[in-house]
């Protein structure tokens, strides 16, 4: 019971093999232009890749080898396209009613109104799409998609045009739908928070390829490779050397003169790229005894700091590596008690458990899509 995808195509480029869990929300995350929309369109049967095999719950939807293809309208999907694709000649109510053609006429309009209410545009039922705001159009597209009560919901950045409050209300609706119907959802998003809040699974895509897939929490915590780390917005990525000269033959990551203890073991030695989440860069307070807790201390100088909402971003340069910059995130409140000044020295600790060690990249996935 799952959605199996094998897609190969050129222009849009796809080279993908993935299995998405049934009954869950899977987020597709990737840079702009990496092929997320194309994947959704292929699942919907709107894009015909050169080679495709798509099976939903064991049922074949596309199989270019077997020359089987279930037409879009027969796939039990709800699709919110990136550009909405509303029917311009129908009112908001009429747009939703288009998804409800299995109902009788009276039921249909009652039910359509309910779906509009669900996305909080109930009072705009009589408006034509032309007279709706961007976010209202987007929500209308969402209402139309869920109105079909699909087995598979394909959402292409479905909350990009609505405000936070509305977004949060819509998250609740989507989650409620999930609990009620157990439908499978593929959510394209650029918003890590959104993925974290909504999706139980996460697929990282780059240049049409799958970089990493797995439960959201795991992927967020442990990106498998440098590209994945970049996708997850981890700014601290560095070049080090792995060697086996640690205590008791354990491996050590050499970063300039620093010799950082690591958790994992690799059977390679040599140059190795690694990273760390800014939130995992810990400030060592002078006034507190750390003792043995002080893992992998790095002495730094503060370059700059910026307060962002409730967060404080601090850029540090290790004293021993003047060309590298390390980003650290602290709660803004920390500044009140320990005012930071550019130029000031401080020691941070990079706990071995938090170090991300990137294996070899899959060939060709190193570059960043435009």
């Amino acid at each position, binding site marked *: 019971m799952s959605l199996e995808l094998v897609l190969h195509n050129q222009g849009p480029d796809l080279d993908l093999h993935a299995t998405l869990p049934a009954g869950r929300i899977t987020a597709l995350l990737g840079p702009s232009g990496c092929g997320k929309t194309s994947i959704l369109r292929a699942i919907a*049967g709107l894009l015909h890749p050169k080679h495709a095999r798509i099976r939903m719950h064991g049922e074949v939807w596309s199989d270019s080898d077997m020359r089987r293809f279930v*037409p879009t*309208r027969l796939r039990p999907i709800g699709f919110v396209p990136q550009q909405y694709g*509303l029917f311009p*000649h129908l009112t908001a109510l009429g747009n939703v009613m288009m998804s409800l053609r299995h109902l009788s006429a009276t039921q249909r309009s009652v039910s359509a109104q309910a779906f509009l209410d669900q996305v909080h545009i109930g009072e705009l039922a009589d408006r034509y799409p032309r007279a709706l705001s961007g976010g209202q159009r987007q929500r209308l597209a969402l209402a139309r998609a869920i109105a079909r009560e699909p087995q598979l919901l394909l959402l292409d950045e479905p909350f990009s045009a609505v405000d936070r409050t509305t977004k949060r209300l819509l998250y609740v609706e989507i989650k409620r739908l999930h609990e009620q119907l157990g439908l499978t959802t593929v959510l394209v998003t650029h918003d890590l928070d959104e993925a974290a809040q909504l999706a139980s699974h996460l697929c990282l895509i780059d240049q049409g390829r799958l970089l990493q897939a797995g439960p959201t929490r795991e992927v967020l915590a442990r990106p498998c490779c440098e590209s994945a780390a970049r996708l997850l917005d981890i700014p601290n990525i560095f070049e080090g050397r792995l060697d086996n000269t640690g205590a008791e033959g354990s491996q050590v990551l050499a970063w300039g003169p620093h010799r950082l203890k690591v958790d994992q073991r690799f059977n390679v030695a040599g140059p190795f790229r690694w990273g760390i989440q800014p939130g995992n860069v810990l400030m060592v307070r002078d006034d507190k005894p750390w003792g043995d807790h002080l893992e992998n201390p790095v002495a730094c100088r503060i370059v700059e700091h910026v307060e962002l909402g409730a967060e404080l971003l601090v850029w540090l340069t290790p004293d021993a590596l003047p060309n590298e910059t390390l980003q650290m995130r602290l709660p803004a409140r920390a500044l009140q008690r320990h005012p930071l000044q550019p130029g000031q020295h401080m020691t941070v600790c990079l706990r071995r458990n938090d170090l991300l060690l990137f294996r070899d990249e899959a060939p060709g996935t190193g570059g960043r899509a435009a």
Partner: protein
Amino acid sequence: MDWQSFSLSLQLALVTLALLLPLSIPAAYWLATTQRGIKPWVEGLIALPLVLPPTVIGFYLLIVLGRQSWLGQAYEQLFGQPLVFSFSGLVLASIIFNIPFAVQPIQRAFEAIPLEVREAGQCCGLGFWQRFLRIDLPLSWPGMLSAAVITFAHTLGEFGVVLMVGGNIPGETKTVAISIYDRTQAFDLAGANAMSLLLLAISLTTIVVSYGLVGRMMNARRPV
């Protein structure tokens, strides 16, 4: 005033419209959606009735549909009366003659429907007919209107073909166009003027009312 020919022309125009539009719509739809290599050939063929003078088309129709032709005889056996010099013959001729005027505007209108909207129709699970009736047709109204108005007016004014296959039979094939022409030939300028003016007035009213109504309807629904 030759009222009979007025009513005959109106009948002819309406029957032509009623038969031609339902034929043109699928043809235009196919042309708008196909990617096949023969598409420009079909488009070219459809435009051909324009190229020959109506009287010449009439001449050939007379040969092809006449009582001596295979087709004319088959028709006569089926319906017990010949196709030429009859109202049915006129209808057939005016359909053939109007094909390009009906198909092209509708085709352009179908082509202008955004891909996203068509795809959304598929994603709503609508079958081909549902999509066609509820999305494609309503969105191509202006093109249909153009096609209908042009066909209607053009049938009213059609002369050459009708003259050739009609034979100017009052009440059956003597249309108002021929009637007006007969007036001019008889140097009855007053009669010709009166009929022309009335014809123009009727047509203008029809066109203005239909364009006005549909124009107002379309304004609210422009695509986003």
